[in-house]
């Protein structure tokens, strides 16, 4: 059975008597145990609105969200809290509190009226801190943590709630690349090892394609599409969703390419390996069209450390890519 399932869901905002603003409609998705799913889409497509609706923070404009087969609108906050835990983009200022106590707040739906801990609660909190790899932070003050550390602690708090489903709104925003990769790998591992479903929204296309079991792709206008990352690349869904003037999604590499075809000079690069790859990248960046044969310029990088350029019978040598591009531009 699906942990979470939506039916004809429409999300958006109501303003009293004025007509409501629908951000996305006709959403039919489901989430299963042990699944790591990334919600992708351009800014303004409604990722956060969808997430807020899925966790019951705002009512749907149309359709239903079912949690363990039960309509979320009929469930109390405490019932929802025993299934879903969240990591939000809200700035938190908890005051003077040790990390372990903050993680302990995740036990809220499981403790008595004053929130005292049983041995089981202590054990779950210790496990959550270990699982989020935040052991060395356990007795630090929350106010003194860096962004990346705080994100780990908030993940630990969400884990301590012992949910079946964890939903995270852009958990990797504001983090540097190694920290993003670390968090994504951590969440992927948690989904598989603890048999939870984890749904997160992100702008990190590359990492999402590498880590996610499935992708929910929410285009700016149009229907939400789901599938394995590779399926959505092959059927052109990504290209459609991220179409814009400046960039395009390159289905060959799974990365964005800048539409910088300004020049029409053609260059051929002969050579292989890492140097050849980055030389081609540099030439594309500089606005040259890179071809294999029949180009005006020929760059040969096979010999030594230098870049040899042949143009109309004249051969010149450059010591770096920087000089090479300057030379080609004349």
């Amino acid at each position, binding site marked *: 059975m699906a942990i979470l399932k939506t039916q004809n869901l429409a999300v958006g905002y109501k303003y009293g008597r004025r007509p409501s603003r629908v951000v996305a409609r006709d959403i039919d998705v489901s989430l299963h145990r042990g699944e790591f799913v990334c919600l992708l889409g351009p800014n303004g497509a409604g990722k956060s609105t969808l997430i807020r609706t899925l966790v019951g923070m705002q009512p749907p404009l149309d359709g239903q969200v079912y949690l363990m087969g039960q309509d979320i609108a009929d469930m*109390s*906050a*405490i019932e929802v*809290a025993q299934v879903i835990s969240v990591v939000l983009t*809200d700035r938190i200022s908890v005051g*003077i509190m040790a990390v372990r106590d903050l993680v302990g707040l995740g036990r809220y739906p499981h403790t008595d*009226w004053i*929130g005292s801990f049983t041995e089981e609660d202590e054990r779950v909190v210790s496990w959550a801190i270990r699982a989020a790899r935040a052991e060395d932070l356990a007795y630090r003050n929350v106010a003194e943590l860096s962004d990346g550390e705080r994100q780990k602690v908030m993940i630990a708090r969400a884990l301590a709630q012992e949910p079946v489903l964890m939903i995270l709104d852009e958990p990797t925003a504001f983090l540097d690349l190694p920290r993003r990769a670390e968090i994504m790998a951590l969440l992927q591992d948690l989904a598989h090892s603890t048999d939870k479903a984890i749904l997160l929204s992100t702008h990190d296309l590359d990492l999402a394609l590498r880590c996610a079991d499935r992708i929910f792709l929410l285009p700016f206008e149009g229907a939400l599409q789901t599938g394995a990352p590779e399926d959505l690349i092959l059927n052109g869904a990504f290209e459609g969703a991220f179409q814009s003037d400046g960039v395009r999604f390159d289905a060959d590499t799974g990365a964005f390419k800048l539409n910088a075809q300004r020049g029409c000079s053609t260059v051929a690069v002969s050579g292989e390996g890492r140097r050849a790859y980055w030389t081609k990248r540099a030439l594309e960046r500089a606005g040259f069209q890179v071809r294999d044969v029949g180009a005006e310029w020929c760059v040969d990088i096979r010999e030594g450390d230098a870049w040899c350029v042949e143009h109309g019978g004249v051969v010149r040598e450059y010591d770096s890519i920087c000089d090479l591009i300057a030379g080609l531009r004349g």
Partner: protein
Amino acid sequence: MIGMEAQYEDEAREGPRHAVIMLGLFFLLLMAFGLSLSLGSVHIPLAALFGILTGGEVSSAAWAIIVHTIRLPKAITAVLAGAALSVSGLQMQTLFRNPLADPFVLGISAGASLGVAIVVLTVGSVGSVLIAGLGLMGDLSLAVAAIMGAAAVLGCVLLVSRSVQNVMTLLILGLMFGYATGAFVSILIYFSVPEQIQSYILWTFGSFGSVTWRQMPVLISAIFVGLLLAFLCIKPLNALLLGENYARSMGLNVKRIRLWVLISASILAGATTAFCGPIAFLGLAVPHLCRSLLHTSDHRVLMPAVTCLGATLALLSDLIAHLPGSQFVLPLNAVTSLIGAPIVIWFVLHRKNLSQAF
């Protein structure tokens, strides 16, 4: 690794450290209570005091009368009022996540002031009928007027709070209620004679000394209910430290808890203001002092600490206001702020943890 273990042990001692501080605070409260019975315009030795309180040998009938009719009710009132205002301040600061919030941010004291102002300032103009009525009601009339004023404003705030999504909106609305009510008081003062204005001003100075034994059960039960509600809200208040969205995601019914916290804080602040006048500063400062002293935002620790320290500081403020050994009495509100402000400034500058609290 050794450093790590030492750190763990250090943290494991946090619990006992809190217990020691709590014990100290409680001892301080007992001392302050004893002092406030013993010191005043007439000094009563502690030994004699013990005799009077336990119903034993009484060395001086005058002393027994002073303790029973003046000092004991005053000390009990101070304990109740100090605890009530401080707990109510803590609730407001957490609910609004705002270090400047105090028991009166929602206009409760302004409402009480309006009630009192109406009674005190309109007595002359309305005529002898009302004066006769006042005589009948006796000393309860001011309290009744203050309670009705506070309840009216409180009712408006609670009514609005049911339909307000954002707690910040509520804060601003409360401030507006306060200003509007204050404006009515200004108008009343403008059309009153100096003698009436003076008796109104006297009320605004605040005093623990006007509660009689006859009124005491009312005050005690109101504050008991308020404190009980406050202690029942400890766990939700801890969840609210993470913000309303997280609190909701952990299973908290935010709107309902907000209502209960408001009711509790309003009973505490309203009852105190009705019987003692608008007492400034304690409700704002005591929660900050406790957070800084105990180095935590956990309401399980803060709530009892704030209750104790609030009562103690109220007793001490009253003691200082009565300038022991002299016949002079200073306005209570002047003392709480005059003594309190330097203490808080010292804490802010010497213990750097206050800035982390919000």
